[in-house]
């Protein structure tokens, strides 16, 4: 049952499946911190939790679905966004959040990412970017910075990395922001803003993977990485997304880069149908649960 009771306990506790704690994430991992920000955003936005559905893919970040006390779906690798699309189209009243990792969303899921942004589907995508495929042992991802060492690029990565905010802005997203796990309050605020926005919202959160990425690249532990985020990040709201690519030890430009208005997919669909069909257009029913059938 989802409810928030005001009690003396941890305010984040009602959002967590406490019967599954402790979680599987490593010491120093930032995913738990992002979930904290997410929970605070839910509290502050006073959103009806019944209407929030969370969809994740596969990977360390994908495990978020299993720890939040919401209608949550742990789907297949790269396909959280199309699943979320189906959920939203069948029940437009849902607030559908896609919570997944950089490899899941931009590599195997890349096609779905750009099409969902193009369509401007009303989805809130939280992309935790730890610069590798963490769960499977720290392989190169499309976001791994130049020269970084990973398990599949033992001599240093040489492919140019994706600049995710730039990619999704070009594809059509209406809200694009980037923070790190150091920016807990700003992240919570961004998530709250995304909930208010109708259309495709994308929030990238740079996060440490001390067990794999940081260790292999001799960048210290989770705490060292947080200090690095603190020192090297620069808040530049509205910065052109083409200029905010990440490098191995360089600056991290954070902030809210895109906040624009475009009609979302469902508004466009509705308008088109009304224009073409007029009276013949029948809006989709609410799919109310019918009486359970009495078959064995």
């Amino acid at each position, binding site marked *: 049952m989802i409810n928030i009771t005001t009690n003396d306990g*941890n305010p984040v506790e009602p959002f967590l499946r406490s019967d599954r*704690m402790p979680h599987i994430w490593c010491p120093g991992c930032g995913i738990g911190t992002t*979930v904290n920000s997410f929970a605070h955003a839910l509290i502050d936005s006073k959103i009806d939790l019944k209407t929030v559905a969370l969809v994740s893919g596969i990977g360390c970040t994908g495990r978020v679905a299993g720890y939040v006390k919401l209608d949550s779906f742990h789907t297949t690798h790269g396909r959280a966004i199309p699943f979320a699309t189906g959920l939203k189209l069948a029940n437009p009243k849902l607030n559908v959040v896609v919570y997944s990792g950089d490899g899941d969303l931009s590599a195997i899921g890349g096609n779905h990412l750009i099409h969902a942004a193009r369509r401007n589907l009303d989805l809130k995508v939280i992309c935790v970017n730890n610069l590798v495929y963490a769960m499977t042992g720290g392989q190169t991802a499309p976001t791994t910075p130049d020269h970084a060492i990973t398990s599949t690029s033992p001599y240093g990565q040489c492919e140019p990395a994706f600049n995710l905010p730039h990619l999704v802005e070009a594809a059509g997203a209406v809200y694009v922001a980037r923070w790190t796990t150091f920016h807990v309050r700003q992240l919570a605020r961004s998530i709250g803003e995304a909930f208010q926005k109708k259309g495709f919202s994308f929030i990238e959160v740079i996060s440490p993977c001390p067990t794999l990425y940081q260790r292999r690249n001799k960048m210290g532990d989770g705490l060292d990485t947080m200090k690095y985020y603190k020192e090297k990040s620069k808040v530049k709201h509205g910065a052109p997304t083409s200029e905010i690519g990440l490098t191995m030890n360089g600056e991290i430009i954070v902030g809210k880069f895109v906040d624009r208005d475009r009609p979302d997919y469902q508004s466009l669909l509705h308008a088109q149908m009304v224009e073409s069909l007029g009276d013949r257009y029948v809006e989709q029913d609410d799919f109310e649960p019918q009486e359970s059938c009495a078959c064995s």
Partner: protein
Amino acid sequence: MEFCPTKVLALSSAFNSKGYHPPHVVEPEKCSGCDLCGMYCPDFAIYGQRIAEPKPAAKPKPEAGHES
């Protein structure tokens, strides 16, 4: 502990059930109620709580996590 602006927390010498030294509250009177500890903790083990007393205080859970 690193992020507490008023240095309320320190590593305890005790072990918790996962084999780590959890942070514990050493100077509660210095807590400013900012809840940064609560927001940063990736294990959901600590949170700030305002109590009806002259000053707010930080209140960590007895152990950082427990077996389900």
